[in-house]
């Protein structure tokens, strides 16, 4: 009945509460990334505003299914198209944004090199993606999805990114 035991029970209570909070719904990483990638496109300004936003995926058919599902839910007012591409395709003409997954480092570099200075938003699945010349790199930290933005790559492509996005991102020069 001392202050100490009272404090102890309060701590226990807090612990219990936090345990309950921890078992919040978990969503598959893949889906969150697809949603985040889609939402990021709202914060990007293309030099010639595309009437239909062409989202392309490279390297994973699962990803394009996932992204397609997300985009379908987004409704018909948002005119978006999801294209599945393979290595060697003409990315510049078919895409406003390209999400690359499951490709070897060297293949990724080849793709990024072919897209240099083209207004195509490149998105990848790791922090390093932005360092390697990609524009947005999605990754998980502490169980939550985060992303890096490479400002230099974005500028080189002639794209603009709204400041609200930069506030949420880990920015790389």
């Amino acid at each position: 009945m001392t202050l100490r035991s009272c404090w102890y029970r309060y701590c226990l209570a807090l612990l219990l509460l936090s345990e309950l909070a921890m078992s919040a719904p978990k969503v598959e990483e893949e889906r969150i990334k697809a949603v985040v990638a889609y939402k990021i496109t709202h914060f990007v300004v293309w030099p010639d505003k595309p009437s239909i936003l062409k989202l392309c995926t490279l390297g994973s058919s699962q990803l394009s299914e996932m992204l397609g599902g997300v985009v379908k839910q987004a409704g018909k007012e948002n005119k978006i198209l999801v294209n599945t591409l393979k290595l060697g395709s003409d990315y510049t003409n078919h895409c406003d944004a390209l999400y690359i997954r499951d490709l070897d480092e060297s293949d990724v570099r080849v793709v990024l090199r072919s897209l240099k200075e083209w207004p195509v938003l490149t998105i990848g699945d790791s922090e390093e993606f932005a360092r390697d010349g990609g524009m947005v790199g999605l990754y998980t930290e502490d169980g939550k999805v985060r992303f890096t933005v490479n400002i230099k790559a974005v500028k080189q492509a002639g794209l603009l990114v709204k400041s609200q996005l930069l506030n949420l991102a880990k920015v790389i020069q």
Partner: protein
Amino acid sequence: MKPQVTSALLAATLTFSAPSLLAELVTDDFSSDELSNEELLSLSLEEVMTLEVTSVSRKKQRLMDSAAAVYVVTQEDIRRSGAKTIPDALRMVPGVQVAQMNSNTWSISARGFNYVFANKLLVMMDGRTLYTPEFGGVNWDVQDTLMEDIDRIEVIRGPGAALWGANAVNGVINIITKAANETQGSLLTLGAGSEEKLYGSFRHGGHLSEGAHYRAFFKTFKRDGLANSDGSDAEDDWEISRAGFRVDWEKDSENQITLDGAVFDGKTRSPLFIFDRDIPAKVMLTDKVKTQRGAHLIGSWQRSTSDKGDFTLKGYYDHYKNTDYRISADRDTIDLETQHRYQWLENQELIWGLGYRSSWYNLSNMNYVVVDTEKSVERLYSAFIQDEIELSPDWHLTLSSRLEHHTSTGYEFQPNASVAWKVNDQTTAWAKISRAVRTPSISERRAEVDGVYMVDTPPLPNNTYLRINRNPELEAEKLTAFEFGVRRRVNGSLSVDVATFINRYKDLHSLANSVSCPASAPINGGGLCQPAIPTYFLLPVGLTNGLDAITYGLEVVMDWDVLDWWRIKTDVAWLQVDASRRDELEYSRQTEALVESLSAEYTGNLRSMMDLPNNWSFDTWIRYMGENRSAGTDAYTSLDIRLAHKFNEELELSLIGKNLFDPTRLEFNENFTGISATEVQESWYAQIQWNF
């Protein structure tokens, strides 16, 4: 009374808040443990980023983080090097020495012991072993597929025994072909040239249904012989035709099934320089055509499991048959494996697996290599386990071991431990210690080889040939390896990879004295086998585990994007071999000298890839191989160039020149196999490739 009130209040808060929390959780579609897309989209980006994620997909390890000396030959590397065979593609791997003995025979090894029966390298294609246990080596001439459909070749220098099995002593080469959905559409390739006389291949890929893709291909070629040292045509030409298919079926997001199969049929000519007892003398036989036929079928099923992992079940059947003048083989192999990878504890990923392999042999036509029984079965049982522990975000410790039971040598245990340290985002350091064994091949344990090798050093009489007796007691060769390496991404365009090693070998095979002679030629007073009519003699020797060795070396690899359109890949490797015999017998001394000079001390590669305007590309490849004293070859530098133009998305024309510094060059020579070495020639060929 106060504390009781406080605790009562606390209890009350809990009781009232808990249900509301629970209610919140329940209303959010908790039955499927996830939020719907609609719900996710209704949240703001900031809110989505606060959600907890579960990772179902398999962890894809960055090459940067692996604790081993890994090198990946990419499809771009293969395409731009103009390599038309897998051995040619392997020439660009640091630390791997490729020596072409004749038009269709190669000697390939990593970190030493380069020999036609180079038996310390495990080679696989899509998980199917290409190593021939009969003779301990790889028949490189029949290991082939459509070069354009190879996704990558992963080469691990150093023992990979724990994960891959016995005989992965000095390295593991894994040739991985592309998934069917990456080879869709049709691809027609045609080419002709001075050495690549004529070749063509056709591949078509499509899809069977939602999630099921396939491809089928046909490939044929006719390759010219190389040259003799006097410049004359060496009559070691070969031609092989091959057809294959692959089906990948993504049944649902958790199940993936793959089926891969191929058949091949071909003829190779390899001039033999071999002893003819009837004359008696050593003769050059150039009309012995070796026919080779084979087929394989691989099936695998991979399934994601609930514990954030995956389970794989794989099986394959492999058939090979040849008619070789020295000894002919007919072999069938069945292999069954399982593998389970899962997150065992929060910071530990466990992989474990079981394997069973059976090979049935039927050996015939034993003119020069005589095995005690014509038919035999070799069985292999294996179990392995690997635990990858994340000690901290920057330190990873991997412990693995493999237990095998071989028909030949019984139980073999191969453990290894490695640690990877992420020094910073751009630098990773790693260290590894491992044990590996090389089990003796059927020919080493049970074959007698007569009349292939002439021993003409005095005081032995003229026409004395070596008779290598069988040794069923032969033990496995053992290796304890210590490796260390550093990988650094210097900046966005330059990365450097350094690997160093010290390998300690025990019980290497060496020749020893013997008194065992065939019945037709019993032993005489001088210790030689003498036939009734003494027109020739045989010097009896046996194989024993009589040699130890230490090898050490350094491999430096650099990848540099000089400019946007110009990339350079280069590597240098240095190797030292120090063998030591266990006894003072003459043969041991000779084997020691032989082993020490089996590989070149220095090798290097410099490749340049340029993307020129208007869809032209120009690639060059300079490679250096130091002298190989055992093989009697000098050091050489070689140049390959490739000029290509893409007319449009579909059509590409390329011109390739190979071995341009010397008109002819001897790369390898030895006396144990009876195969006569010929010289690699300078060559040109043109290729047209149509993608439609």
